[in-house]
C-alpha cells in the first residue's frame, strides 16, 4: 500500500482535470464534499460534467462559478431554502447541458460503470418526458423474455469526490452512517479523492475490518479535512449549518450576490 495523503490544493490540482466527468458524493446537504467543491472553484476548473442524484449547494456553486459544462442529475434544489438559482439561471440561458434523469437512472448509470458494462436495464421510465428527452436512455427488449425495458447508458466518472468520516493514509475509508451512492461512485471512477474528518492509524483499521466501507484499491488521494462537508452535515459529527445555507440561498438570488458570496466565502478564503 502506498501513502496517499495530500493537501486539499494538491489533491485537486493533480487529480481533477478540465473536462473531467466528476461524480460528487453526498445527498442534498448531507456529507457533500464542500471543501473539495470550494477548492475546485478556487482553482478555476472548467468544462466539468458533474454527476449526482439529488444535489444542492455543491452543484449550484460549481455551476454558478462557471466550472460546469454538463449536469447529470435527478434534482438540484436547496430544499426548504428554495431553488438552486445558479442552476436555474444557467439552464434557462442554455449555458449548461442538462442530462436529466430519475434518481434510479443516475444511480444505474454509475452501477453500470462500476460493473464495467456499457449499460444496464431498468423497469419503468416509459411515458415520462424524461425518457423522451434523455439521449442516454433508450428502449430495449429482454433477449430472453421479450420484456420491454429502458436501457441506461453507463456514466464512468474520471474522478469521484467524497467526504468521509475517517481514512487511513493508504486510503481505507470509513463512512459512518448512510453511504448514499458514495461507494458506488468510488467503484465506478478512475480516480477517487476523499476528504476525511479524521486520519486513523492503519493498525486501527486492521483491528476493525468491518468498519471499512471503501478499501484503498479504489482511492487515489486522501485529504485530512475536518469540517470538510461544511455547511452540509456529516452524520454523527455535525448537522448542516442552517445560517450559512440561508446566507447562500439569499446570495444566489442575483448573479452579483453570488459573486460577492464567492469572493468573500470561497475565493479569498482557504479551507
Amino acid at each position: 500500500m502506498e501513502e496517499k495523503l495530500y493537501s486539499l490544493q494538491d489533491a485537486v490540482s493533480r487529480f481533477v482535470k478540465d473536462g473531467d466527468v466528476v461524480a460528487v458524493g453526498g445527498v442534498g446537504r448531507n456529507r457533500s464534499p464542500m471543501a473539495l467543491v470550494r477548492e475546485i472553484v478556487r482553482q478555476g476548473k472548467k468544462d466539468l460534467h458533474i454527476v449526482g442524484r439529488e444535489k444542492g449547494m455543491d452543484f449550484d456553486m460549481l455551476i454558478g462559478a462557471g466550472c460546469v459544462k454538463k449536469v447529470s442529475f435527478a434534482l438540484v434544489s436547496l430544499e426548504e431554502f428554495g431553488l438552486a438559482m445558479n442552476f436555474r439561471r444557467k439552464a434557462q440561458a442554455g449555458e449548461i447541458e442538462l442530462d436529466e434523469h430519475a434518481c434510479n437512472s443516475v444511480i444505474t448509470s454509475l452501477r453500470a460503470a462500476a460493473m464495467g458494462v456499457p449499460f444496464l436495464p431498468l423497469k419503468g421510465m416509459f411515458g415520462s418526458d424524461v425518457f423522451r428527452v434523455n439521449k442516454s436512455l433508450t428502449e430495449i427488449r429482454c433477449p430472453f423474455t421479450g420484456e420491454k425495458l429502458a436501457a441506461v447508458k453507463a456514466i464512468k466518472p474520471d474522478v469521484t469526490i467524497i467526504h468521509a468520516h475517517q481514512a487511513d493514509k493508504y486510503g481505507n475509508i470509513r463512512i459512518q452512517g448512510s453511504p448514499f451512492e458514495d461507494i458506488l461512485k468510488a467503484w465506478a471512477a478512475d480516480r477517487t479523492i476523499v476528504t476525511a474528518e479524521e486520519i486513523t492509524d492503519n493498525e486501527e483499521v486492521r483491528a476493525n475490518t468491518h468498519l471499512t466501507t471503501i478499501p484503498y484499491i479504489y482511492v487515489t488521494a486522501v485529504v485530512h479535512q475536518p469540517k470538510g462537508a461544511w455547511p452540509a452535515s456529516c452524520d454523527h459529527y455535525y448537522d448542516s449549518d442552517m445560517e450559512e445555507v440561508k446566507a447562500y440561498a439569499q446570495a444566489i438570488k442575483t448573479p452579483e450576490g453570488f459573486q460577492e458570496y464567492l469572493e468573500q466565502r470561497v475565493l479569498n478564503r482557504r479551507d
Partner: protein
Amino acid sequence: MAEYTVAELMAVCLAREIKDGDRVLQGLYSPLPMMACLLAKNFHAPNMVYFNTSDVIDPEPTEVPFSSAGPALQERAVAYIPLWQTFDLAQRGELDLIFLGAAQVDKYGNTNLSVIGPYEKPKVRLPGGAASAHLCAIMDTVIWVPRHNARVLVEKVDFITGQGYLTGGKAREEAGIPKGGPRKVVTNLCIMDFEPETKAMRLVSLHPGVTLEEVKENTGFDLIIPDKMETTEPPSKEELEFMRQIDPKGVRELEFH
C-alpha cells in the same frame, strides 16, 4: 374540536393512505410525507415499513429535522439501506407507496417538476423530479399539493416528469407501464382520486370549511364531481398532540409560509 392547521390536516390525510404493513418511501424535501409516515406508524399502521432519503429503515426521531434527509431522521433506525436497494425493491414490486410533490399536476395525475414552458428553452427551470420518472411508472403514488390553484392543477402539464395516467383510459398499459399510478391527490382544499374508467381526477372530499365553488375556481380543468360529497375527517386530538411533540419547530408548516 381541537384547532388545527391545514398542514396538520394534510399530514393526517396522507397518513390515512398508508395501510398497516405497507412499505412506504419518503423522498427529499417532503415534510408532510415525513409526518405522515411517523403518524401512520404511531397510530393505525404499526407494521408499516418506513423508508426515507436518509437511507434508513424505521427511524424513530425524537424531533423531526428540517432537511428530510438530515441525520436526525436516522435516529433509532434499525438499519441503513442505500436508496438504490430500496429502488430494487420497487422494481420487484415490493414497495407499496411513495408520496410525490409537483409544480404542476394535470387532470390525469401527471406531474411536472422539470420545466415551465418548452423543454429546450424553458421559461422556468424547476429542480427536477427526483425519483419520479422511474417510480411513478412501477408503483402507487399519492400526490400532495400545499397550494391548490389553477397554476398548479392544470389541464395538461408542460412536461411529464412523473407518469400519472398519461392521456387517461388505458394509456398507461399502452405505454408499457401497467402497474401502479396515482391513487389520490391531497391538497390544502380537498382530496381527489381518479375515476376508474377515464382516469380523470375526481373530487372525493372537501376539507372542513371549504366550498365546492372554491375548489372549482382554483382548478384549471373540469373536475369530476361526485353525487355525494364527503367532508374530510379532521385530525384527532391524539394525532395533533403527536405531531406537535415530534415537531416543536414547525417543520410541517414549511410549505405554507
